[in-house]
Structure formats: C-alpha cells, structure tokens
C-alpha cells in the first residue's frame, strides 16, 4: 500500500510521502546527495531532505519565512492574502522566486481554524488578520462544552489553506519543500477566548478546556490529513503553549500533549514529515519531542533546559532538525551585515553534521524591507558550506 503510494506519486511527478520511504533508503539517498553536494549544487528539496536525515548537504538550507511580507511583491493586500488561496499562492511563489529559500511554511495567520469555529475576525489593511476580541466565541467556562467538531467540507478559511497547499504542492513540485500548517488546539481555543482568560482557564478549569480540545482536535486531525492529501510533504504544528511564555510544563503535557500526539500521528500515518513551530521563551523541547516525535522544530528562543546554543545542539541536535533562530528585533533594526554575522554565528554552532535550517525565529516581520531576508539567504550561501 505504502509502495503503491510512492510509485503513484512518482508517476504523477510529485514528491512521494517521505515517511513511507524506508529509513535506510532515505539515509542512503541523503548520503549520496551529501557526496554530490561537494561537487555540485543540490536542489532546495534535496538540501532540506539531506539535512533532515542529519547529513551535510552542499550548504545549510535557509528558510526566510517571508510569508505575508511578500505580498507587496505582487501588490496583494493583507485581507486578500488571508482570504484567497490563489493570491496567497502567488505571494508564496514570489517569495521564493524573488528572495529565495529552501523551505516554505504555509502559515497565513494564527486565526484560520478559530474563524471556522465561529470566531469573529478583523482583517486589517496593513496588518495580520486577528480575532475580534471584543466578541469572543468562548465567553465563559461553560462555552467550552458547546464546541463541536466541524466537517472540513463546511469550513471556510481551513479550506482556503487546503487549496493553498494543493496549489503550492503542484507549483513547487520537486524544487522546494512545502509544509502545511496547523495551529495546536490550545492556540485555537485561545483565539476564541482571549489569551489572558484562557491561561487562567487552563490552570483553574483544565477538564473543561480538555473537553473543548477533544472537539477541536477532531477537526484539526481532519485538517492535517487534508493538507497531507494535497501532496505537501510536511505539516507544521504550532504548539506555542508548550513554553514559559504560557503554561507550566506539566500542565501543557496534561492538557495539550495527548492531542498534539494525535495530530502528529495522523500526519505520520499519511507519510508526512512533522514540524513544530514554537516562538515562545523557554520552550519545552523535551516534552514536545516526547509527545509529538517531530522531524524538525522551529524556535525563536532557547529551550528551558539549555543555557547556550551549543548545549542545545549537544542535547537535541541528534534527535531533531533545528530550524531558527535569528531574532526578530535584529531583522527589524539590524544592518544586513549584522544579520549576516548573527547567521554565521548560528551556522558555526548549530550547522555541523546537518540537522540545521537557518531561519528567523518567527515569521519574517511583514512590514519591513527585504534587506534582512536577503542577508539571511546570502549568509547561508556564503557561510553555510
């Protein structure tokens, strides 16, 4: 069955589900790509897949994560980018063609799922779409029990993102690795409740929150599966609440851990690669690896149990591919030279033996110039060998 899927994908000239390829074969392919990378240039896809197998490609891959920021290349407005799969696909395509990069993460904003659960939204002209917090869907603790799973066919924004995955998987083909995106159940619920009240609910009413997680996760599993079915080889799950920026570790493990595992398992069953994005401070790498067994983790700050990037590489470098972690403030105020110096520092420490993709810690700031993005790409080309 798995081999049939691989052959069918190859026949259709699409990337086969990477997870269905036997690991020794993946390692062999990565090793061969590593050798080839010493004498010739690899494609972006080869580069990323080689890195994920912890082999050194021709250079460190780079993901500038210029998502909404690239809308100005095509003259697309923020609301159009958020609501039209076709326009968003043009933006992501332009991002890769104009700025460069080896990996695309199809993250529109963090309200895609919440909007389909009934959360009223605001689509500003010059900023990211966000919930209207004056009209939260979850007004009190009793409302958690009222949430029901939604069939994916009846969703609006989630279907837009699935269509975006379909377009981008077709457009990027064998060139660049494309990842879908799912906001974790706690993130979705916080968008419908407001972060402050939601934090307190997690501490004071965990059973009610978990009940709502059940309903939301059922939909998120179907959402992740639908993304995998479009042919994207990876799906990234955002579990922001697994960090010091939110909940205590044991609370996160008790509430979201099992649901995060359900979502990552469904991606893996589809042969997809599992990514985690978390831009909080003091991230719980150990807990997230335990519950989700990801292939890659994208991070903005060091995990709670590592004091230095060297320690991070030593502790987690073999278990997972690290994606990060150029600071957002540096991208905003730094000169291209300063950004490149920071990239070189990170490549030196984290890039050895593969397993590292250079990227901003979070989405590239949407309203700044592309100078820092160009600096990221240039740094990978200059120092990533």
């Amino acid at each position, binding site marked *: 069955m798995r081999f049939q899927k691989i052959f069918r994908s190859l026949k259709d000239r699409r990337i086969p589900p990477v997870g269905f390829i036997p690991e020794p074969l993946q390692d062999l392919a990565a090793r061969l790509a590593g050798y080839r990378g010493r004498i010739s240039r690899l494609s972006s896809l080869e580069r990323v897949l080689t890195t994920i197998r912890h082999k050194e490609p021709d250079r460190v891959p780079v993901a500038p994560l210029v998502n909404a920021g690239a809308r100005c290349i095509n003259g697309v407005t923020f609301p159009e980018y958020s609501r039209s799969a076709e326009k968003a696909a043009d933006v992501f395509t332009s991002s890769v063609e104009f700025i460069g990069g080896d990996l695309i993460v199809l993250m529109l904003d963090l309200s895609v799922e919440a909007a389909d659960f009934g959360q009223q939204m605001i689509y500003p002209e010059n900023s990211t779409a966000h919930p209207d917090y004056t009209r939260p869907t979850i007004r009190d603790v009793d409302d958690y029990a009222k949430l029901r799973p939604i069939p994916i066919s009846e969703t609006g924004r989630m279907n837009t993102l699935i269509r975006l995955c379909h377009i981008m998987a077709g457009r990027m083909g064998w060139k660049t690795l494309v990842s879908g995106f799912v906001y974790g159940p706690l993130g979705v619920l916080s968008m419908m409740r407001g972060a402050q009240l939601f934090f307190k609910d997690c501490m004071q009413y965990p059973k009610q929150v978990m009940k709502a997680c059940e309903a939301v996760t059922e939909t998120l599993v179907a959402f992740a599966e639908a993304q995998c079915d479009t042919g994207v080889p990876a799906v990234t799950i955002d579990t922001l609440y697994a960090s010091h920026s939110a*909940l205590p570790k044991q609370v996160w493990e008790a509430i979201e851990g099992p649901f995060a595992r359900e979502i990552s398992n469904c991606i893996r069953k589809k042969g997809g690669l599992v990514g985690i994005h978390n831009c909080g401070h003091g991230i719980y790498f150990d807990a997230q690896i335990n519950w989700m067994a990801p292939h890659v983790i994208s991070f903005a700050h*060091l995990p709670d149990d590592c004091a230095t990037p060297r320690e991070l590489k030593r502790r987690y470098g073999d278990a997972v591919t690290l994606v990060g972690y150029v600071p957002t403030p540096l991208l905003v105020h730094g000169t291209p030279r300063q950004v490149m110096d920071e990239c070189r520092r990170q490549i030196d420490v984290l890039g050895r033996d593969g397993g590292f993709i250079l990227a901003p810690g979070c989405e590239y700031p949407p309203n700044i110039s592309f100078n820092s993005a160009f600096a990221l790409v240039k740094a990978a080309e200059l120092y990533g060998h």
Partner: protein
Amino acid sequence: MTSEDMNPSNELETAVADRNSDLLQKGLEAFDRGEISPEEVLAALIRGLQTVRKRMAAVAGPVVELLLSVDLMNQGLEKVKASLPPSPKGRVVIGVVKGDVHDLGKNIVAGVMAACGFDVVDLGLDVATDEFIAALKRTDAGVLALSTMMSTPLENMRETIAVCHREMPHVKIIVGGAPLDAKLAESIGADAYAESAVFLLPAMEKIAGEQPSARIDAYTDYERKVKVVTVHEDGEKSRKGVDA
C-alpha cells in the same frame, strides 16, 4: 508556617506569592474587621508579588504563574485602593499601541508596576497616539509605557514616541514586547526597555533617575559565543541567565 499560624499580613503576602485565593479572602476579611491597615495590606501584597518576581528572575517560570499572582494582587488592591493616599512613586500611563490587540504582557506589567508603588492608568489595547497624549495631559503622568507583541505596529509605536517627545518632553517612555530588544527600543526613541515584567524594576528606576536597587550586567562571551546576563538584586546575585 501553617495558615493557622499566619497573621493577616502573612496571609496576604503568601496568597499572592503562592497564588492562593482562599488566603487572600482570609486576609481581606481581616482588613474588613479592621485588624490590618490599608497600608499594611498594600505592603503585604507588594511583598508577595516581589517574591514571585524574584523567583522568576532566579528560575525562569511560566507566565501564567505571574499572571495569577498579579490577578490576586489586583483583587486585593481594589479592596483597599480608596483608603490609600496617592502613590509616592508617581503615575504611569500604559497601553498597547494602535494595531495590536495582545494585552496579556501589558496587563502583567501594569500589575507589577502597581506592585512597585506606581499609580497606573491603563488605557487598554489598540490605543492611538492622540489617546496616549490626552491621557498623559489629563493625568499629569511622568512615564508612558508602551507595549506591542507584533512587529506590524512598530511604526505606530515609533510615531507615538516621537509625538510624545515633541509635545511632552518631560515624559519618560519605556517599551516592551516580543519584537523589541534594547537596541530597537533605543532606535525608535524610547528611554528604557524592559524585556519582561521580571526585569521591569531596574528599567523604571533608570528612567526615574533613581539609584537602581537591582543591577543588570550583560556582556558577550565571545569564547563561548553566548550573551551572559547577570542580575544583582538587593545586594545579592539573584540570577545568572545565559542566553544566546
């Protein structure tokens, strides 16, 4: 110390430090009975929050713990506010700049400022420049605290700072939020930057021109390629944070 051994002051302090709402109620009932003065209530609440703040500086902890403590402290403050004299530390206007609706960090900072003895005027979120200026004029505040969690409203923050410096040059401005660091804060014209509520006090003292009760040493260890941050508080080294 068990709860039976505690006096009302201990109860209030422990309530905030350990996030115990039952103890808070017990302490506030003692206030209602006249067993503790409003000044003692305030001092106990402040001690409780300072304990949490110092604990988080020593061993970084999840934000929700500080949030719950701030919440309890605010409940206590609400009860005694009317009986207290004006704050000696001065007044702060605080808000999230136009274009941002994330107010969790701002709310925590506002609570910690109140705990540090400032009279806080909270304008909420998505606040326009003219609203900040009007509030500063109306309240005669000496400090403006601005927050944003997103990079898109940074231009609005820059504009608010510029207008404030132009129209009210005596007002000091402190900023914080996820897309900021000290250098960016300086480049948009802020007088001080606080990475989080935990490190708020030294920043507030800096702009007030006071002798800081806490000192932060930061340097880059090029050998280990890390930035080392050391916080000395109350004469003791309370945290050695090492970050990249």
